[in-house]
């Protein structure tokens, strides 16, 4: 079996118990809710008589015990059925795929931006630890690290959308713009600049610091002295050797931050009115849509597991010590 396939299989098998725990855990948590979906449905859609209420409860399995509901849910899930969204009156399995791609795009762009700019600045800071440049970047990154993404989003809206009118305030594309092809892509791109920046900044600061700190450690490793003895110039040592070694833990961090970034997208999507997965989560909570929330938790767990798997594959490509049989 090729090593890639066996790695994938191994990881998928390892992910199953974790997913099972996520499923049982979140099911139990949401079962503990006082008031059920019918209550919140009624609260929004006006009065129903007692008979209609009972019928609705029966339809949604709310008259039975939690064990019955879990069994029903798990059985349906095994057949690929995520249940019925009470808020959207559509299958959960139909609602989530509409929303997930936008969020994945947002996260991919934000991760790419944070990783490349963050580690680039980290290299510049870490090239000469203790220098003025290093201290400036360190302090700046610490300050940026303290900025919540949703507030940064609001500030960016005030500056770039309200005052300067360079970029749109929110949404994913202009409504009824009639654009198509590249014009439409450009329009979507313009809508994504501010949300991606808001989501990415914290991670940019994090990767900058990580890169810088790791480089600081690598400068003390003996092989760097031997590189100097080979007569290799400073910046070549910085880029080809020290940065190359220091980027490895940053790549590991990319996977670890996938969950946090998915969480961050909930607020950022709300700020920019992006109809993505994160905003769906906030709506599911606000409208007490338990099946939808369960589906969201499950899907985000799968997203995080896949993201980590991708990062592990990339790491294997970057670190020769992992590549050739550990």
């Amino acid at each position, binding site marked *: 079996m090729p090593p890639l396939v066996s790695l994938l299989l191994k990881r998928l098998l390892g992910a199953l118990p974790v997913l099972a725990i996520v499923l049982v855990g979140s099911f139990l948590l949401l079962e503990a809710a006082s008031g059920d979906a019918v209550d919140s449905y009624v609260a929004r859609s006006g009065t129903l008589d007692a008979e209609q209420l009972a019928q609705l409860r029966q339809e949604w399995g709310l008259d039975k015990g939690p064990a019955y509901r879990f069994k029903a849910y798990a059985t349906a899930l095994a057949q690929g059925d995520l249940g019925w969204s009470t808020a959207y009156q559509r299958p959960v399995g139909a609602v989530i795929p509409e929303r997930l791609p936008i969020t994945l795009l947002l996260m991919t762009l934000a991760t790419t931006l944070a990783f490349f700019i963050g580690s680039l600045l980290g290299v510049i800071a870490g090239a000469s630890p203790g220098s003025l440049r290093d201290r400036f970047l360190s302090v700046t990154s610490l300050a940026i690290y303290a900025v919540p993404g949703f507030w940064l989003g609001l500030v960016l809206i005030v500056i770039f959308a309200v005052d300067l009118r360079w970029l749109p305030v929110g949404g994913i594309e202009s409504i009824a713009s009639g654009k198509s092809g590249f014009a439409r892509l450009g329009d979507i791109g313009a809508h994504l600049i501010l949300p991606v920046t808001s989501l990415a900044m914290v991670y940019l600061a994090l990767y900058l610091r990580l890169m810088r700190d790791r480089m600081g450690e690598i400068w003390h*490793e*003996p*092989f760097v*002295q*031997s*590189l*100097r*003895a*080979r*007569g*290799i*110039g400073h910046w*070549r040592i910085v880029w*080809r*050797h020290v940065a*190359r*070694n220091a980027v*490895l833990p940053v790549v590991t961090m990319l996977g670890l931050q996938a969950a946090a970034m998915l969480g961050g997208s909930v607020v950022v999507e709300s700020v920019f009115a992006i109809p993505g997965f994160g905003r769906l989560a906030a709506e599911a909570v606000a409208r007490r849509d338990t099946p939808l929330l369960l589906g969201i938790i499950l899907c985000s767990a799968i997203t995080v597991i896949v993201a980590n798997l991708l990062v592990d594959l990339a790491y294997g490509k*970057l*670190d*020769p*010590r992992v590549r*050739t049989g550990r």
Partner: protein
Amino acid sequence: MSKPYLHIAGLGVRYGAAVALEDISLEVGQGERLALIGESGSGKSTLAMAVAGLLPEGAKATGSVDFPTLGYKPRPGKDIGVLFQDPNGSLDPVMNVGDQIAEVAMIHQGIGWTAARVRAAELLGAVQIPRPLTRLNSYPHEFSGGQKQRIALAIALAGNPSLLIADEPTSALDTVVQRHIVNLLDRLVRDNGLTLIFVTHDIALASERTDKIGVLYRGRLVEFGPAADVLGAPRHPYTRALVDTHISLDTPRRKRLAEIDTAGLE
């Protein structure tokens, strides 16, 4: 008399208030092999690094280190190859060894990548790594300690230096491997007509294959001269103790060998 290759006069090195070397003066001729002997902390490595121009930041050097036959300040990597003690700490763990050797050849010989890789394969062969062409793409962790030290030697030679400084190159290796590396080093130095500075605390190793011996004690050069003279008639008590300990600990056969070897060097 012709100009010496290396001329050191009144060299002192201090780290802040701590004196590492004091008033060192010596000369080494082109193609000569000098052993620097001393216990740890005696300053022998500092002297080697001062010659290589690789003193760490914060070190203050006085006096002069000149290379009269070169006529210019030698560049590390190009004119001086350095071999360090720890083979695990000599190589970049995430770059394949072919690129690491080729990098030095490219920088110092102004050749392209392909030519540099060919040169890297030649050098790997010269340091007796089997199947050098296929091993170019291997990474440091895929080699044994002794092999890593050979690769480090190949890198040290990649810039075609005229001086090789070996700073205790075998003390991290086991005895059998030590002997292989020393033999290899010796042959390559002779074949290429290199000048060698060999830092060691092993007087037997020093006596066998070097022309001159310098003994350092607490930052001072207490003894310097042709190997046979230093070992045959040590003047400083430390050298005497060193020679005596060695002889008393070793078998008579080794003693004879050492005598024969030093005699043969003259």
